[in-house]
């Protein structure tokens, strides 16, 4: 971690992520104004000392809605990463370690899923589950599981041939123990790198879905939804678009910078070039 901090990109990334997390925390604990209740006396107020980022067409404080949206976005992205990495890693590790016709069948299904454009598939899943945070999480997890499973499987496939894994089998350790103790932990580095990338993708996809009106249903705030609502007022109230737009891009930038630094740190091939 200390080596990671020596990379300037990593510092910027971590700082941006910290801001995002703090905003998300405030979104739950305290916001200056209620993010949901309308205040028709203060519609489309420009940014000022009272309303830092102005107010929207319903008179809601944009800053408060941003904080609230941060907690929604972070929660959805985090849950997505948790599910897709958890389930994907399990599938990848099992199929990679044990092989056989069953795992080939599973991978066939995984590959078929991989062939779907992720947003289209998410649309389909949401059509079934309905537009809600849970719907978005399930939809995005499903679309990311194949990628995780592929990466983990590839790593476990090569780790399975390592002699320390064979040594463990020769000792009489159960296969599942060997897999969990020796194979999977040594694949953790690429999994972490992938997880950070997924977090960024999920953040973006959640915004995109909300923008399309398929994400978190109104009146709850979300960055993508705010961006969508701002379209009608871009001329008269540009801050409505700029604030959530900046929030999305900066968070994404932070996560990606951090992910790149992690990858450079974990991947020995990349490390030598730096």
């Amino acid at each position: 971690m200390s080596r990671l901090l020596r990379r300037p990109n990593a510092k910027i990334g971590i700082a941006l992520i910290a801001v995002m997390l703090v905003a998300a925390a405030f979104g739950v604990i305290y916001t200056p104004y209620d993010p949901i209740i309308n205040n028709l006396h203060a519609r489309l107020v420009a940014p000022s000392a009272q309303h830092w980022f102005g107010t929207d067409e319903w008179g809601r404080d944009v800053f408060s809605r941003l904080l609230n949206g941060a907690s929604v976005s972070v929660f959805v992205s985090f849950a997505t990463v948790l599910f897709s990495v958890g389930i994907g890693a399990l599938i990848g590790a099992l199929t990679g370690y044990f092989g056989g016709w069953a795992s080939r069948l599973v991978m066939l299904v995984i590959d078929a899923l991989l062939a779907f454009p992720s947003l289209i598939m998410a649309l389909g899943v949401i059509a079934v589950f309905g537009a809600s945070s849970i719907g978005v999480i399930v939809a995005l997890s499903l679309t990311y599981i194949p990628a995780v499973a592929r990466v983990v499987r590839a790593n476990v496939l090569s780790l399975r041939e390592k002699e320390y894994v064979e040594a463990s089998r020769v000792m009489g350790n159960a296969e599942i123990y060997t897999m969990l103790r020796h194979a999977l932990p040594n694949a953790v580095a690429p999994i972490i790198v992938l997880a950070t990338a997924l977090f960024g993708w999920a953040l973006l996809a959640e915004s995109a879905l909300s923008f399309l009106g398929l994400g978190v249903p109104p009146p709850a705030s979300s960055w993508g939804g705010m961006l969508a609502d701002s379209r009608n007022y871009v001329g008269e109230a540009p801050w409505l678009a700029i604030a959530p737009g900046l929030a999305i891009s900066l968070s994404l930038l932070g996560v990606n910078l951090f992910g790149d630094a992690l990858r450079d740190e974990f991947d020995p091939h990349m490390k030598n070039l730096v």
Partner: protein
Amino acid sequence: MNAATPISAPATDGSKGPVLAIEHLDIGLRKPGGDTRRIVMDANFSIAPGEMLALVGESGSGKTMIARAVLRLLPPGVVPLGGTIRYAGEDLARLDAARLRALRGNAIGMVFQEPMVSLNPALRIGVQMTEGLRLHRGLRYDAARKRCLELLERVRIADPLACLDAYPHQFSGGMRQRIMLASTLAMEPRLLIADEPTTALDAIVQKEVMDIMAQLTREMGTAVLLVSHDLGMVARYAQRVVVLCRGETMEMGETGRVIADPQHEYTRKLLASLPARAERCRTPTPGEALVEIRDLDVDFGKPSSPFAFWRKRETFRAVRGANLDLHAGETLAVVGESGSGKTTIGRALVRLVRESGGRIRFEGRDITACGRRELDAYRLKSQMVFQDPYSSLDPRMRLVEIVAEGLRCVPALSKQERRARAAAMLAEVGLPGDFAERFPHELSGGQRQRVCIARAIVAGPRFLVADEAVSALDVTVQKQVLALLEDLQRKFGFAYLFITHDLGVVEQIADRVAVIYRGRILETGPRDAIFADARHPYTLRLLQATPRIRRIEGGAGYRLEQHESRAQPPPEGYVYFNHGSLPGQPLSAGEPQMLAVGPNHYVACAVGAAQTQETST
């Protein structure tokens, strides 16, 4: 280069003096902190036309760095600090890039260690081979092609014309190395740099490639700088040798003289580390064997398409009808080249692969058809030491945890007891005290192999499968590990199944030897019988291909020994079994029969008239 350069006169004047002269060469490694560590100190030597000089040393001796410095191909961070490298009187350090390019691959050729990666897999052999001729000599493609055909013939490629139109993957490692050699020598370089050119090859192939290289370079008058760790090979081929240790030149001189009368302490140590025949050789106690392998077949499925669920997978038989006995307390060596199936036998024995046919009995009990509980009990009695000390230890675990894991399946042991026994075992293999809390990456290759041994024996097995357990180690370290293995055997009394390609190691530690080729065991017998009285022509070829250095009786020096035993006719009414091991002879049909030719000495034969056997050698 312009097209007018004549083909046969590759380089400049100065043809009287040495081709390569290195004086006071220092090479340093720049560390990230800014300071520089010297990795080659004051190297001095020169090579005359037609001469082969060898740089010999263990890993980290700087031998490869010197060779690379000649071509200015040092890896990043490694820089020449001083001294001169002269090629035919020309200082290589002062050359501009254009002149250097003109020399590289033209007047100075290079053959690398890895034949599998040094040819471009995407290009036909002909295109790659003619590249240099077209670039440096300005030859047209067909003229260059003619020249290449000539060379391919001289390195004894069977069908040179077909070879030019083939791709590298169609050839074995030995063939590729010959092709590399041919394409390098097509330029008639005045200097050839060969960096461990045959290290990745099997003994018989190694001899063929080295013979060709020595002969061709002598004929062409090419000076050769050979880089090698293998003293036996160097003694056989190089006229002069430079012995390096940690960048310093220890000794230099005529190869025969250096070996017969080593002056420097390190040279003596190196020679003394070479495997030598041990005095003792146990004969197995008659009676029941500890492990009996009967008619063992092992098949491997070839990878098939993921969509072909219904199709039966094609299989490759790695071991065919193997019969072997391992007696308590003895060392049985299984010898063969890569792909012979020797490793597969070992892996079947510790249940890492399933057999497709046959039986393995341990203490009279059939372990190929036993339940989970019996298998667990068997696994405590059988253990394995792997070849690669760098991938056989889990990088995230401390040594004591690694060794303690060997006790995980021993019933009724507390965690503390396991750790205590693991620490004691680490001390036993020479890693006492605070080694227990270290991680594998803090250890050297030899130390790692000690950990592997500790892990394997901590639960008190009856036998160990050692799969090329010392092949990756330098000779001095190898000697220590072999000594450790022998000490442990004496102390704990387990049997070894020692899998190796190195006949020197076999001679040192084996009681009995089994020779295997393409899945078939061709000859088994007591060590002395195999080495003094080998019967199967393949065994004989293997013995003759392995250069061995022996201590001169009663003296301090050593000499290169030629293998002396002669071919012997097979028993009346039989021919030696041939399934590809005897090139140019008819293949034997059916199953081989193991015929006794001496006490405990068996050779694979097939029924047939023994008439033309004399031609086999």
